[in-house]
C-alpha cells in the first residue's frame, strides 16, 4: 500500500518535470519564432543579427544555417535576463574567490576598482605568429622590421598570488622574441611600462592603454629606431569631455566597482602640419579626411578620439620632409600612439590587418616604405599570419 502510494508520488514528480519541460520549450520556442525583434542590443552594445536571406548558395555553403543560428541566439526571448542569470551563476560556479583579492569574470580580472586584460599566446599561436614575422623579414630583407608586443594590465596590477608564470607577459614577450630572427628589431616595452605603472598608463574600465601608456612604448620604439622621441611637454594636451565607462564594464557584466568609477581620456596633439586620409583598401582612391586625435567624441566610448576607432588604412603625410616612411600593421592599441608616431616620419601608414585585404610586400615596394612595425596584443592573433600570406589572393 505504502509502496503504491510512493510510486504515485514519484510519478507525480516525473509529470511535474515533464510539464515544466514542455511549457519551457513551448513558451521559449513560441517567442523565439514570434517574439519581438530588436535592432540593437543595449546590453551588448551591438547590432542584433537579422534574419538571413535564404538562397541556394547560402544554404549549400552553410552560411544560411550559421547566420540563422546567430539570429535565433540574438533574438532569443529574455536574452539579456538569461545572460545576467548565467553571469551570476558562473561567478559562483567557476570563479570562486575566497577573499577580496580579485576575481576572474569572462576571462578578465577584477581587482578593487580595476578591470584587467591578460594576454598570452598558446604554443600554437606563438609558433604561427613568429613564423609569419620571420617570413616577412625574409621577403623584405632591406626593410627595417620592428615587432612590438603589448601586454594587458594584469601582470602590472593583479595581486601576486594570481600571477601564473606561464602567462606572465614579460616571459611570453621573451619567449616570442627568442623565436624571431635577430634581423628583426624586437621592441620590448615591458619594463618601460612596468617602470611607469604608477602613472595612468592603462584604463581601469577598459582593456586599452591610455595615451601615456602608448607614449611609454613609443619612446622605446624611437630609441630603437634611432631618433629622439618627441617630448610630451612639446605637445598640446587636453582632457576629453565626459566620463569614459570602458568596454570592460560591459564585458564583465557591469560590476559596481567599475560602474561607479569610470575613466577619463587624456589626449596629446602633434605640433606639426599633416594631412590624414582613411581608405577602405590599398588602392587608396576615394579617401576620406580623418582627424587622428580629437578632444571630444559624441559617444560613450571615448577611446574613439584616437583615429576615430579602427580603420582599414590611414595614410598620414606630414611636413617632415625627411623621406622617412613607416607602415604600422596594427590592432586597436596602436590608435593611442598615432599622435606620437607622426612626429618623426614624412609618411605613416596604419594598416589594420583585421579590416583590410592587402599584399603588404607590393605595398611596401610601391610606397617605398623603409620601416614596418608590427604592433600587436600579446595574444599573438593567428589571423595575422593569414593576413601576411594574403598576397596571392589579393593579386
Amino acid at each position, binding site marked *: 500500500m*505504502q*509502496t503504491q*502510494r*510512493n510510486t504515485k*508520488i*514519484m*510519478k*507525480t*514528480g*516525473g*509529470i511535474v*518535470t*515533464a510539464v*515544466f*519541460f514542455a511549457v*519551457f*520549450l*513551448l513558451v*521559449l*520556442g513560441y517567442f523565439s519564432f514570434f517574439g519581438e525583434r530588436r535592432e540593437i542590443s543595449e*546590453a*551588448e*552594445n551591438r547590432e542584433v543579427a537579422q534574419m538571413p536571406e535564404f538562397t541556394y548558395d547560402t*544554404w*549549400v555553403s*552553410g552560411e544560411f*544555417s550559421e547566420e*540563422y*543560428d546567430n539570429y*535565433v*541566439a*540574438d533574438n*532569443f526571448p529574455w536574452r539579456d535576463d*538569461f*545572460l545576467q*542569470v*548565467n*553571469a551570476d*551563476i*558562473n561567478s559562483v*560556479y*567557476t570563479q*570562486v574567490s*575566497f577573499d577580496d583579492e580579485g576575481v*576572474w569574470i*569572462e576571462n578578465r580580472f577584477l581587482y578593487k576598482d580595476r578591470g584587467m586584460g591578460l594576454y*598570452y599566446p*598558446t*604554443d600554437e599561436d606563438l609558433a604561427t605568429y613568429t613564423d609569419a614575422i620571420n617570413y616577412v623579414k625574409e621577403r623584405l630583407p632591406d626593410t627595417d622590421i620592428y615587432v612590438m608586443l603589448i601586454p594587458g594590465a594584469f601582470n602590472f596590477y593583479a595581486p601576486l*598570488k*594570481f600571477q601564473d*608564470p*606561464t*602567462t606572465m607577459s614579460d616571459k611570453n614577450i621573451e*619567449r616570442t622574441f627568442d623565436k624571431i630572427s635577430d634581423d628583426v628589431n624586437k621592441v620590448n616595452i615591458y619594463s618601460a611600462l612596468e617602470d611607469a605603472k604608477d602613472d595612468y598608463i592603462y584604463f581601469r574600465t577598459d582593456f586599452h592603454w591610455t595615451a601615456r601608456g602608448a607614449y611609454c612604448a613609443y619612446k622605446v620604439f624611437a630609441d630603437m629606431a634611432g631618433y629622439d622621441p618627441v617630448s610630451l611637454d612639446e605637445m598640446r594636451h587636453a582632457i576629453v569631455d565626459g566620463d569614459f565607462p570602458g*568596454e570592460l564594464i560591459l564585458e564583465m557584466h557591469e560590476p559596481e566597482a567599475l560602474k561607479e568609477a569610470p575613466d577619463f581620456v587624456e589626449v596629446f596633439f602633434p605640433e606639426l602640419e599633416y594631412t590624414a586620409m582613411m581608405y577602405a583598401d590599398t588602392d587608396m582612391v576615394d579617401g576620406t579626411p580623418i582627424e587622428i586625435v580629437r578632444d571630444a567624441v559624441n*559617444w560613450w566610448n571615448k577611446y574613439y578620439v584616437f583615429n*576615430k*576607432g*579602427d580603420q582599414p588604412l590611414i595614410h598620414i603625410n606630414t611636413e617632415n620632409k625627411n623621406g622617412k616612411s613607416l607602415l604600422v600593421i596594427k590592432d586597436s592599441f596602436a590608435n593611442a600612439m598615432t599622435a606620437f608616431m607622426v612626429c618623426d616620419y614624412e609618411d605613416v601608414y596604419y594598416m589594420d590587418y583585421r579590416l583590410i585585404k592587402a599584399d603588404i610586400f607590393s605595398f611596401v615596394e610601391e610606397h617605398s616604405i623603409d620601416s614596418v612595425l608590427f604592433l600587436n596584443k600579446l595574444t599573438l592573433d593567428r589571423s595575422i599570419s593569414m593576413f601576411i600570406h594574403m598576397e596571392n589572393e589579393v593579386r
Partner: protein
Amino acid sequence: MVFSSLIFLFQFLTICLLLYFIIPSIKLKNILLLVASLFFYAWGEPVWVTLLIFSALLDYTVSNLMFKKGSPKAWLIISVVLNLSLLITFKFSGFIIQNINALTSSHIPDPGFMLPIGISFYTFQTMSYTIDVYRKKVPPERSFIDFITYVSLFPQLIAGPIVRYSDISKELKSRKPDILNGVRRFIIGLGKKVLLANTAGALVGEYLGRINSMSVLSSWVGVFFFSLQIYFDFSGYSDMAIGLGKLFGFQFLENFEYPYISKSITEFWRRWHISLSSFFRDYLYIPLGGNRKLQVRNMLIVWALTGLWHGASWNFVLWGLYYFVFLVIEKYIFQRSPVKAPAAVRHVYTLFVVMVGWAVFYFTSISELRTALSVMFGFSGNPGYYASDLPMLTSHVVFIVAAIIACMPFSKLCGRIFDHFIEKSSMLTVLATAAQTVFLCAILFWSTSALVGSTFNPFLYFRF
C-alpha cells in the same frame, strides 16, 4: 545541428515533438521522424546528406536482394566494401595520401574532403545491419522508409550510440513513448554537456594550450580537465540521445556505465563507449577468431582499428595500441596472478593509465605529444609547480567537486538509500521527489542560460 544549441531545443525539437504527438499513426510518425532527421542532418551538411541516403539505399537494396539473387556472400562483400570505401574516402584519404607522400617523397595532392558528420556512426550501423541479415539474425527490412528512418534517426545520428537494427527493428513498427524517463534523461545529458563538458573544455584550452611552459602539476590538471571534458561531452550526448529515443518510444542501449570508477582497463572498456566496443567485438574480433585462435593478433587488429576509428591521425592509432598493451598485460599477467592489489591501488592505476591515454588522444601532433609527455613526467625541466597553480585550481573547486560527483554512480546510491526508506515514509518520498524535480528543472533552466551565455558577444567597435 547539435543537441546543445538554442535552435535545436527551442525550435527544431519543440516543433518535432509537437507534431509527433499530434500525428496518429506509426507510419506517419516514422515519416515525420525521417523528414525531421534529414532536415537535422542537412542543416549543417546540406550536400553530404546525399551520402547518408546513398549508404541507406545501398544496404536496403543489398539486404533485400541477398537471398533472392546471386550469392549472399557476394552481396555482403559489396556492402562492406562500399561502406568502408565511403569511410576511407571521406575520413582517411587525406591521412593516407600524406603518409604515402611522406614515405615515397611524392606529391600526390590531398583531395581535401570534409569529414561528413556522423559518417563513422552511420556506415557502421548500416554495415552491422547487412551483416546481421547475412547471419540471419534479422530479416531484411521491407520498408525503405522504416529502414532509412532507422539509419538517419536524429537522436543517434551524429554521435551515437551505435544503434543496431536488431535492437530497434520491432520498435520501428510499434512503440510506446516513455516521456517521464525520456525527459529526465535528456535534461541530465544536456546538463552534462552544457554545464560540465563545456566548462571543462574552456579549462582544457587554458591549460593544455600552453603545455610547453606549464608546471608538472598543471600539465596533469590540464589532462584531468580533458578527461572530464571528453567523458561529459560524449556521455552527455549519449544521455540526450537515449532520452530523445525514449521520448519517441525507442530503447537505445546504454553507452557509458560510469567508466571512471573502473578498477582495471578491461573493466574501463566494458564501461566506456559500450556500443563501439561491442560492435568491434561482434563484427571483427569474434569473426577473426576471438579467444579461440590467435587471440593476441585479434586484439592487436581490433585495437589498432578502434584507435583509427576515432580519427585519421597516428596519435589515435597509438592510443588504440596503448590500450592493447595494457589489455594484454591484464589478461596474461594480472588476471592470472594469485595475489590481487587492493581496490584503491587498482583504481588509481586505472585512472592513471586512462589519463595518460587521454593525453595521447588530445595531442594530435606527435611532436606536441612528446613535449606534453615530457612535461607530465618531469623530463622537460619545467618546475614541479608554480605558486599560482593553487589559486588557479581552487578558483574552480565548485566545478571540480560537481564534476567528480557526476562521474560517480551517485544517483544510483541515492536511489538505493531512497528505496530503503521508501517503504517507511511518504514524507521522505515527497521530499526526495521534490528535490529531484527542482534539481532537474533548475538544470534545464541553467543549461539554457549557459547556452545563451555562450553567445554573449559584446562588440567593441560598434556605433561609430
